[in-house]
C-alpha cells in the first residue's frame, strides 16, 4: 500500500475518520493499529523483526538510563552495534548469500498473496534503525529521558506516514507530540491535504514521467550519445528530487491530518549556492543525523587526538574536517546501497566539501581582488549553476548500474556528441514534452518560494475562486498528465 496507490487513498480516510471519532485516550492505540496494518500490507513477516527491534530498544533505553555513567558506555556500544548488525545483515543479505531462494510473501488489500522469491530489505528498516539510534544517542547524552509508555515508543518508530522512507524524526521532535491531545484542526487538515496534493503532483506528474526517459536511456547507456546522457542525467536529478520530496510531502501532509508536524526533508535543494548549502537542503533529517551523530563526534574525537596546530603545513582543523567529512560521506554512500557507485557518490561529496573548506579563504581573497560582491545577482546564478553541475556529476554514479557504466557515461558526456534521442515513435517526444512541462512547473513554483515568497500566489490567494481553481487544475493535471503505472518510490529500496 504505497502512498501513490488507490488502496492508500481508501485506507487514509477510514483511519482518519476513526481517529477523530475515538476518545483521545485510545487514539494513540488506533494510530498504532493503523500503522501495523499499513506495514502488514507489504511483507507481513518483517513485522516480527520490527517488533523485536522495538521491544529490545525500548528495554535497552530504560536500562541505559538507569546504569551508572561508567557502565553505560559498554551498554551503549552494545545497543548501537546490535542495531547496526541488524541493518547490515538485511542490507547486505543478497551480497552475502547471492543465490538465496527465500520465499517471502506480499499480501495486498484483497488478501491476495504474491510470492517474492528473493530476500529484500524489510520496508523502512534503514529509517527505523536510524531513528532508534538517534533515540539511544539522545538517551545516552541525557538530552531526553527514555519514553516509559511502550505504546508511544512503538508509535514513535511505527507511525505509518514516516515508516517507509522517513523523515528520520528526533525523539525530541515527535515523542512530545504523541503525548499531546490532537483536536480536529481545520487549518492543519487543509494544510495537510494541500501538501499531499503537491506531493502527488511531484511524484506522478514529474518523477514518474521523467523516469520513463531516464530508464530508457540509462538502462541502455551504451547505445546513447553524450547529449542524450546529459539530458537523462538532468532528468534524473529532477526525478529523484520530485520522487523523494513528493513522498516527503505526502508523509508530512498525512501526519498533519492527524495533528502531527513532521520535519521537512527538503528545502529547494537545486537552488543551493554551494555543496554545503545543498546538504542543508537535501534529505535534511538524514544529513543532520549524520552531522550530529557521526561527523561532529568524529571531529571531536580527532580534535582531542591531534594536538599539533599544523600537519604537513596545513592547519589541523582542515585535516580534521577532511577525515571527518570523508568518513561521514563514505557511510552516507554505503547507507544508500551496496556497490562502488554509491560509495563513489558519497566520496565525491566528501571531496567537494573538503575542497570548499580548504579553499574557502582563498576564494574570499579572490572575490575581493576581483571586486565580486557576495550578494551579486550574477555571482549567485554562477554559484547555483556550478553547484547544480557538481551535484549532477555525482548523480551519474548514483544512477548508473555499475562503475564501468558510470565512467562510460562520463566519457560520452564529455564529448557532447550526437542528437538527443527522440525514439522512432512519437511516444518519446510525448514523454519529453510532459517532462519539460513538469520540470518547468516545479522550477517556477520553487523559484517563487525561494526568491519571491511574498508576491502574488495562486495557491494561497485570498480569492476563493482563484485558490480553489488552482487546486482543481492541479488535480486535473495529475489526472491528465500523471503516470499511474509508475510504481514505487526510489528511496523505498534504501
Amino acid at each position, binding site marked *: 500500500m504505497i502512498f501513490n496507490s488507490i488502496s492508500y487513498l481508501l485506507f487514509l480516510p477510514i483511519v482518519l475518520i476513526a481517529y477523530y471519532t475515538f476518545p483521545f485516550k485510545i487514539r494513540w492505540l488506533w494510530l498504532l493499529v493503523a500503522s501495523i496494518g499499513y506495514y502488514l500490507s507489504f511483507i507481513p513477516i518483517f513485522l516480527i523483526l520490527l517488533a523485536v527491534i522495538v521491544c529490545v530498544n525500548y528495554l535497552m533505553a530504560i536500562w541505559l538510563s538507569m546504569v551508572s555513567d561508567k557502565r553505560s558506555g559498554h551498554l551503549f556500544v552494545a545497543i548501537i552495534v546490535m542495531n547496526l548488525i541488524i541493518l547490515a545483515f538485511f542490507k547486505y543479505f543478497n551480497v552475502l548469500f547471492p543465490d538465496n531462494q527465500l520465499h517471502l510473501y506480499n499480501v495486498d488489500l484483497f488478501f491476495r498473496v504474491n510470492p517474492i522469491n528473493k530476500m529484500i530489505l524489510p520496508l523502512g528498516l534503514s529509517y527505523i534503525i536510524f531513528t532508534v539510534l538517534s533515540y539511544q544517542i539522545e538517551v545516552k547524552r541525557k538530552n531526553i529521558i527514555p519514553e516509559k509508555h511502550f505504546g508511544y515508543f512503538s508509535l514513535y518508530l511505527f507511525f505509518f506516514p514516516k515508516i517507509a522512507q522517513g523523515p528520520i524524526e528526533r525523539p525530541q521532535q515527535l515523542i512530545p507530540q504523541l503525548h499531546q491531545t490532537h483536536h480536529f484542526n481545520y487549518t492543519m487538515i487543509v494544510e495537510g491535504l494541500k501538501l499531499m496534493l503537491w506531493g502527488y503532483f511531484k511524484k506522478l506528474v514529474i518523477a514518474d514521467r521523467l523516469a520513463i526517459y531516464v530508464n530508457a536511456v540509462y538502462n541502455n547507456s551504451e547505445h546513447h550519445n553524450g547529449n542524450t546522457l546529459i539530458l537523462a542525467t538532468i532528468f534524473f536529478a529532477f526525478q529523484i528530487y520530485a520522487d523523494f520530496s513528493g513522498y516527503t510531502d505526502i508523509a508530512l501532509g498525512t501526519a498533519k491530518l492527524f495533528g502531527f508536524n513532521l520535519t521537512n526533508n527538503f528545502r529547494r535543494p537545486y537552488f543551493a549556492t554551494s555543496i554545503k548549502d545543498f546538504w542543508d537542503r537535501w534529505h535534511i533529517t538524514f544529513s543532520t543525523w549524520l552531522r550530529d551523530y557521526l561527523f561532529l563526534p568524529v571531529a571531536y574525537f580527532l580534535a582531542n587526538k591531534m594536538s599539533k596546530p599544523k600537519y604537513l603545513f596545513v592547519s589541523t582543523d582542515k585535516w580534521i574536517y577532511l577525515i571527518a567529512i570523508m568518513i561521514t560521506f563514505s557511510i552516507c554512500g554505503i547507507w544508500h546501497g551496496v556497490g562502488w557507485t554509491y560509495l563513489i557518490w558519497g566520496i565525491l561529496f566528501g571531496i567537494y566539501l573538503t575542497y570548499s573548506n580548504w579553499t574557502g579563504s582563498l576564494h574570499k581573497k579572490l572575490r575581493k581582488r576581483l571586486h565580486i560582491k557576495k550578494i551579486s545577482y550574477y555571482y549567485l546564478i554562477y554559484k547555483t549553476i556550478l553547484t547544480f553541475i557538481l551535484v549532477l556529476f555525482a548523480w551519474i554514479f548514483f544512477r548508473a548500474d555499475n562503475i564501468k557504466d558510470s565512467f562510460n557515461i562520463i566519457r560520452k558526456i564529455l564529448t557532447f556528441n550526437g542528437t538527443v534521442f527522440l525514439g522512432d515513435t512519437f511516444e518519446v*517526444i510525448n514523454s519529453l514534452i510532459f517532462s519539460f512541462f513538469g520540470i518547468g512547473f516545479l522550477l517556477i513554483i520553487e523559484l517563487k518560494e525561494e526568491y519571491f515568497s511574498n508576491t502574488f500566489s495562486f495557491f494561497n490567494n485570498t480569492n476563493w475562486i482563484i485558490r480553489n481553481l488552482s487546486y482543481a487544475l492541479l488535480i486535473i493535471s495529475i*489526472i*491528465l*498528465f500523471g503516470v499511474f503505472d509508475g510504481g514505487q518510490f526510489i528511496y523505498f529500496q534504501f
Partner: protein
Amino acid sequence: MIKKFSDKKQDNSFVYFILKLGVFFIFLLCIDSVFGSIIRYYYFKQKSGLEFATTYSIEKTTANILIFGSSRANHHYNPAIFESQLKMSCQNVGRDGQEIFYHFAVLKAVLHRYSPKIIILDFNWEEFIKDQVSYDKISSLLPYYRNHPEIHPIVNLKSNYEKIKLFFKSYPYNSTIFYVILGNTEYNLKKRNEINGYVPLNQIWNKPVNTYNELKKYELDTTKIKIYESFIKDCINSGIELYIIHSPYFARSNYLDKSIEIGQVIAKKHNVPFYDFTNDSVFINNQILFSEPAHLNDKGAKIFSNMIINKIWQPN
C-alpha cells in the same frame, strides 16, 4: 464546561471542513467535466494516428476480413492484397505494442455490431508472458469505456480501481493530449503512410540472423491464456473463420517458445488452424524482406500476405 465547549468547537470545524470539502469536490467535478468533454470531443474527432485507428476498429469498420495483432500485424498483412485476391473488404485492426487484451476488447466491440467472415490473429513470441506492462497497456481502451459496456470486463483487468478512477471524466485521456492534438492535424497523415491499417516499412535489414539456442524460461499469465481461448470461442460462436498465425521473425530459434506451444494446443482443441512461421526458409534466408528482426518490410509483407492468402483460400 471547557471540555464541552472544546468538543463543540471541534464538531463545528469538522462540519465546516466537510461542507467546504464537498463544495470543492463539486467544483472539481465541474472543472473535470469541462476538460473531459473538450478532450473527448477532440479525441473522437481525430483523423489519423493510433487512437483514430482504434476508434475506427471499435466503432466503424465493417470489413469482412479483420487482422488483429500488434505492430507485427500492422506491418505484415497488407489488406489491399487480401481484398484483391479474396474479393472481400479487409481492415488491419492491429495496433503498435498491443497484446491479447486489446485484441479481445476490439473483437468484443466489433461483434457487438456485426460478424466479420474471416479473422486473422497474429500471435507473438512470448505472447503469454506474465508482465504488468501488458495490463498497463489496457489504458488505450479507457476512452471507449463509457459507450462500450462490452469491453468493461477487459478494462477492469487493468486494476481493481478502474471504476473509481473513471469517475473522473478526464482520466480516460491521461497522457493522450499531444496525440489528440496531432491526430487533429495533418502530422500523422504526412508521417505515417497507412492503408486500411497496414503500415508499410521500407528499410532493409543488413545484419546477420541471430540464433537462439536456449529455451527462455518465463512465468505464464493464466489470464492471458484464458482471454486467448475466449477470443477463439467468440469467433467460433459467431461463425467466423479464424486463423492464428505466428508471423516470421528474422531470427533462428532452436526451441519452441512456451507461448506458441500453448497457443497451438488451444487452437487445436478448438479446430482452429495455427500457422507457425518460425524458421520459415523463405524468410530466415532473406534479410532483405525485413525492416528489422521483428518486422517485415513492404516487400516481405507482400510475399507474406500472399502466402497467407494461399493458406486460407479454399476454392469451392
